[in-house]
């Protein structure tokens, strides 16, 4: 626990064709890091973002390495540390910031906050707070995808702690019985709020739960975006071909407290230090430099561009109005 020792090593063969992908990955990971930093470390502290703020610092390779593989007909059900999924799916940063600020520009127009957002036109289902509640929903999404015959796959995201919930079990059980096209993407960041893995489950890995559903399960280094990407390719191909669900356990670490108000004193400092060395963004940059897929200058420029994009997004969001209280009771029903 607390290390990546358990990870199955993947033979990765890096070729120059991967350079554009690397750039893409770096962009989305950096964008997510910057947007979340801004939200958590600036806007929240300034009181411009209220309520619960949960970030995926250190886990960016997971939504990016998987989300980039989504086809237009696929449906994504991100969890609360998967912000990059929204960017990849075409949601501009400004709308995400506005969402956190409770503005009309947010995906829920101020009705809900933080990552509690979705848009079926973009194929994104909103989480609710109750952990793993989207897992049974993903089964229904996949039933519909199969019924419509579009070849789409449902991407169901969750954390290690969420797998303790009955909803998780019921969702996975039904999908595996029906051999539905679902890819389960677990970010095993070793903690659920203050609860370490060994108080959450008796098995060593979330992947150990696969056989209970006769479902292939794979462990991958969740801080290596290429490893995630390649494993996700296998997982998605499996699901898309009609062979049923596939579980991908991405080992990672939550480099923050549970939420913006949590100092995470219950996490041994050494774990933060150890995992800081495995930062997915730094690792990708190093690889890009090593393979000469990018120069230091290009990378620096990308980081600067991302900062500017977030600057503009914050300005836009801050100019977006709060919802008008007269609209309070509108839209409880689709058909009044």
């Amino acid at each position, binding site marked *: 626990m607390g290390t990546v020792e358990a990870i199955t090593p993947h033979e990765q063969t890096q070729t120059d064709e991967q350079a554009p992908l690397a750039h893409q990955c770096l962009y989305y990971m950096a964008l997510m890091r910057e947007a979340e930093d801004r939200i958590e470390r600036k806007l929240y502290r300034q009181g411009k973002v209220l309520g619960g703020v949960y970030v995926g610092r250190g886990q960016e390779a997971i939504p990016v390495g998987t989300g980039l593989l989504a086809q237009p007909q696929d*449906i994504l059900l991100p969890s609360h540390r998967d912000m990059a999924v929204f960017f990849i799916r075409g949601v501009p940063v400004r709308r995400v910031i506005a969402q956190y600020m409770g503005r009309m520009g947010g*995906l*829920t127009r101020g*009705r*809900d906050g933080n990552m*509690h*957002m*979705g*848009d*079926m036109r973009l194929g994104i*289902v*909103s989480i*609710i*707070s*109750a952990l793993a*509640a989207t*897992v*049974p*929903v*993903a*089964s*229904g*999404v*996949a*039933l*519909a*995808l*199969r*019924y*419509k015959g579009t070849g789409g796959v*449902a991407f169901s995201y969750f954390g290690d702690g969420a797998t303790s919930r*009955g*909803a998780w079990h*019921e*969702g996975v*059980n*039904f999908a595996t*019985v*029906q051999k539905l096209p679902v890819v389960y993407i677990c970010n095993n960041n070793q903690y659920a709020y203050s609860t370490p893995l060994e108080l959450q489950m008796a098995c060593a890995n979330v992947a150990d739960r696969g056989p209970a559903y006769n479902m292939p399960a794979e462990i991958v280094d969740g801080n290596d975006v290429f490893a995630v990407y390649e494993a996700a390719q296998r997982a998605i191909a499996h699901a898309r071909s009609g062979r049923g669900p596939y579980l991908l356990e991405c080992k990672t670490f939550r480099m923050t407290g549970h939420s913006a108000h949590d100092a995470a004193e219950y996490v041994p400092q050494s774990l933060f230090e150890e995992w800081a060395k495995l930062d997915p963004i730094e690792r990708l940059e190093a690889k890009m430099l090593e393979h000469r897929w990018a120069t230091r200058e290009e990378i620096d420029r990308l980081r600067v561009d991302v900062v500017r994009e977030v600057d503009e997004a914050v300005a836009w969001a801050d100019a977006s109005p709060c919802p008008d209280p007269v609209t309070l009771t509108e*839209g*409880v*029903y*689709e*058909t009044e």
Partner: protein
Amino acid sequence: MAAGTTYLEAIRQGIWEEMERDPDVFVIGEDVGVYGGAFKVTAGMFEHFGDRRVVDTPISEEGIVGAAIGAGLMGLRPVAEMQFSDFISCGFDQIVNFAAKCHYRWNAAVPIVVRAPSGGGIHGGPFHSQNPEMWFVRTPGLKVVCPATPYDAKGLIKAAIRDNDPVIFFEHKALYRRVKEDIPDEDYTVPLGRAKVVREGKDLTIVTYGAMVWSALEAAEKLAEEGASIEVVDLRTLLPLDRDTVCDSVRKTSKVLLVHEDTRTGGMAGELAVSITERVFEYLDAPIVRVTAPDTPVPFSPPLEEAFLPNTEKVIEKARWLYRY
């Protein structure tokens, strides 16, 4: 005109016709396929529509409702069955937190129907007899339907399936085979959210729904012999609640008796009473009173269950008191 159609058969027909009409409608639940459902409401559908549209599930109420929601978000129109309404508490979070709040939060319609056979009188005991409608009536974003007649059951299930919001559809088990009615062969729906005056009267109003509509009508009939002219309002839909029809009736009769099979405290009578006092208090000539089950689990043994359930006699007694007030 389908002569003498049962309440159960009316629901079955309603679902069947909607499945014929719209390929996006499908059925999901435990034992709904080959077996045709614990009460046979989905009998024959598996053979006719196949396993893609009549989906047997593991024993997983949360899984069933969740799957319905997911399919609903994708534009399908799932009709999910709870084997007994008592088990709806196992899929509760999905209904009250997921389905109920989607549209308000992110504009996503969840056009699902959750069918739930409810009610006592079949010696089912504490876990096969409950009337859990109030868990849902208090949850904004849901619609709650409790039909009393075959005509309404068919028209309302069709309206519920066509509706774009999550509808909890309570089917009273004791009515399944007990009530019959001639219903039209032609396609029709009964709009959600509209109560119906099922008997006109001027001395007092009984507001009720579900199986108790029949007790209220019987009571009204009996008390007519004593000169009482009783109006009976069948709510049909509990949420959205048709307060206008209720209040119009109270304006006319000035006395109101609230009747439900559900237990007393926190039952539907409360919402009706406060809605009435808020709107038409000055019309009231007598206390608003209620006939309900007492605040206990539904007991199994027949003498206990009989004492537990409201019935025609209990309605007569209270209605007479109110009439004479």
